[in-house]
């Protein structure tokens, strides 16, 4: 049995250590294995490590590695390979999304024997396990391989369910079943993964039977594909939240007349803007029902989700009242910004937001900026109200909260995505607690508290969690995973 899949995003490299980006990782997952796995419920399960324990002082981790595992070149998997991998990661150059952060806590690694690995951290690091669940182990036979050697396949030595057959950048990746895989035998003998970034092409290819599976089904095609008997559509919510960031730094803001001041400093205004957005309509009319109204970064199922937060309901009356209360009954003029082509139907969503705010009495211009310029300008704080998204890939909300909502502080590494400069000591304190807590329950409570504070402050104006959609030919089935990746291992033939 073979499978041909059409994926929307091509990887930047087949080097599993090059970038943490989803499109790279979801492919690496087929070829390489990790010490620890995460199951659908978010629990850590044994991978290449069969068991692990933490010392009393919570600084030393001892991993017992699985026996009898071999790499695709036949050499056995040992602790030395793990050491090699950990040492290689910081050496990979030019990575836009390096793994270094994931190994930052580690102060040393040691292969005690072939099957025993000891990891020491400088400080107690509760997130180590979840970080290790993203590190792919490569055979030390790869030597000083460069990223290009992984593309060519010469260094692509893993222990995953598949092995690499061929890769043409931007075009396709062919992988074949790894018969020596220690786990469940893979479902397909060979998989051809084609990179089809044009949505219409992707859908047409599925319909024409050229591919059996596609991801990122454009929402507008959902209905039609569902109606097709030969095709099944699978939808799942994702952990990527779109939101409007509004500048809260100073008394004035770039896109608004200084005479008006900076209305966003007033929490009533922020709340009004949030109440003025008809999230259901956006999801229904623009996203064709794909996605869910959002109230916080972590959707249900993500560690740190606060189930008690209400979702803002569309209430233009109340919104206008609040604006009036804040002294802005006549509104103000401004341009709102969003990227063009970065998120699903992003320009349309932004236009809809503009429409809705215009109906609150604001004089809104909408500008969607090509992605390549957009983020630079956003970072340079050239926008006053702008649309961005943050997707949680680690299974918990801590990074999202720290990077997006934490007070901007370069030295501390907080608030790197806080382009609108929300800053709340309470929030920072709550989040800080979460980063120190070793106990899961304690951490969860801290994260939930932080989420609550942010929601009450209307730190950002949440829009919706993007929906993920896949489609398969009817004789295949696909089970989405919580991280929203398109994993070949989740596809099977009926």
């Amino acid at each position, binding site marked *: 049995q073979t499978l041909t899949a059409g994926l929307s995003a091509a990887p*930047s*490299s087949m*080097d599993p250590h*090059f*970038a*943490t*980006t989803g499109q790279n990782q979801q492919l690496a997952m087929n070829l390489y294995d990790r010490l620890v796995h995460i199951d659908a419920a978010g629990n850590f399960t044994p991978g290449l490590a069969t068991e692990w324990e933490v010392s009393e002082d919570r600084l030393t981790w001892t991993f017992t590695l699985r026996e009898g595992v071999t790499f695709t070149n036949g050499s056995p998997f040992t602790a030395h390979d793990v050491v090699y991998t950990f040492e290689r990661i910081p050496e990979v*150059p*030019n*990575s*836009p*999304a*390096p793994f*270094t*952060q994931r190994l930052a806590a580690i102060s040393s690694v040691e292969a005690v024997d072939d099957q025993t690995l000891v990891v020491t951290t400088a400080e107690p690091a509760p997130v180590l396990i979840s970080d290790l669940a993203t590190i792919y182990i490569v055979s030390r036979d790869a030597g000083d391989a460069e*990223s*290009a050697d992984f*593309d060519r396949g010469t260094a692509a030595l893993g222990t995953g369910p598949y092995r690499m057959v061929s890769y*043409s*950048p*931007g*075009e*396709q990746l062919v992988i074949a079943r790894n018969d020596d895989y220690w786990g469940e035998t893979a479902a397909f003998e060979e998989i051809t993964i*084609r*990179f*089809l*970034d*044009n949505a*219409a*092409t992707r859908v*047409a*290819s599925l*319909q*024409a*039977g*050229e591919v059996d599976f596609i991801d990122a089904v454009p929402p507008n095609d959902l209905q039609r594909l569902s109606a097709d008997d030969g095709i099944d559509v699978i939808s799942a919510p994702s952990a990527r939240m779109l939101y409007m960031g509004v500048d809260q730094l100073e008394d004035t803001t770039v896109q608004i007349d200084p005479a008006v001041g900076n209305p966003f400093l007033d929490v009533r205004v922020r709340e009004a803007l949030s109440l003025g957005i008809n999230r259901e309509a956006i999801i229904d009319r623009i996203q064709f029902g794909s996605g869910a109204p959002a109230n916080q970064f972590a959707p249900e199922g993500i560690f740190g989700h606060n189930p008690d937060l209400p979702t803002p309901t569309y209430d233009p009356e109340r919104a206008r009242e609040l604006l009036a209360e804040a002294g802005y009954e006549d509104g103000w003029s401004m341009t709102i910004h969003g990227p063009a*082509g970065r998120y699903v139907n992003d320009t349309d969503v932004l236009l809809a937001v503009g429409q809705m705010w215009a109906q609150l009495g604001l004089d809104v211009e909408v500008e969607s900026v*090509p*992605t*390549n*310029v957009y*983020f*630079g*300008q*956003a*970072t340079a704080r050239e926008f006053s109200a702008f649309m961005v998204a*943050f*997707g949680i*890939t*680690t299974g918990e909300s801590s*990074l999202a909260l720290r*990077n997006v909502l934490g007070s901007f502080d*370069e030295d501390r*590494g907080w608030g*790197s*995505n806080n382009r609108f400069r929300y800053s709340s000591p309470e929030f920072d304190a709550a989040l800080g607690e979460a980063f120190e807590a070793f106990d899961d329950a304690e951490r969860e409570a801290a994260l939930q508290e932080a989420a609550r504070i942010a929601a009450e402050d209307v730190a950002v104006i949440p829009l919706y969690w993007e929906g993920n959609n896949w489609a398969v030919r009817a004789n295949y089935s696909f089970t989405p995973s919580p991280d929203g990746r398109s994993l070949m291992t989740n596809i099977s033939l009926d």
Partner: protein
Amino acid sequence: MVYIIRRLMQAVFLAAVMSFVVFAGIYAVGSPVDILIDPEATQAERLRLIAQMGLDRPFHEQYLVFMGNVLQGDFGNSFIYNRPALGLILERMPATLELAFAAIMIAVVLGLPLGVYAGLRPGSVGSQGIMAGSILGFSVPNFWQAIMLIMVFAVMLGWFPVSGRGEVGEFLGIRSSLFTLDGLQHITLPAVNLAIGHLALVIRLARSGVREVEPQDYIRFARAKGLSERRVVFVHILRNILIPIVTVVGMSFGGLIAFAVVTESIFAWPGMGKLIIDSIQLLDRPVVVAYLIVIVVLFIIINLVVDLLYSLIDPRIRIDGGKA
């Protein structure tokens, strides 16, 4: 000789100017780091990346370093793919070239006979149909045609695959999808898409060429010699109308490579066009500059070939110095 030197000088000049303009342009747009960088990354990682890519240095320094490397044949690594930019482009060039070639073939093989027919029988219904078709072909935007082709031939009729390059065969050491049945199936729609505009152009050129050449005395003389109509048309007329056609086909070969940007992105054809548009969007400067330089070189080669063809077709033209 003079001609070749002149061409080379032009090429070097062109490449230098282009590379500077593009380099400066992309510098002006912004830093790729902002697009590339993982939202989860810290400031330290960000700075490290900027330093690694050499983006922290002043503009002129970046440019000089880049040009220095270029002179040694190194165009730098792609910011995104982390691989040599030139290699990345050369890897994808065959696919684009083969697409452009297939399109040119279609345009010429279909366009020439149709145009000659329309030129020989200007009033007939057939030729008016051809001309109407060519105006249409001229007018319909490329991307729109592509969508329609996919809709009709791939999705509705299922005759051709929607996307991709298909199987690649090897013949005489050249790897191309033109050598396999599967490959041919795959290339048909994109090649047709790319060809339509140029087909229309070739038809027009052929038609006006015939209308120009036919009343000439040497065609009359050929007829007066008692030659068969076939020989008159295929030898005497055709040879004479080839010049403008070769020019335009040659020029448009470059254009095709560029227009492949649209076709490639719609048909998911793994060529340079798709790469370049992504690269421009992601500000992958080394790739964009390398691409342009490769294009300049291609253009020079094409122009040379066209000029050589000229002197083959038209003995009056000498390579070094225009008309004799």
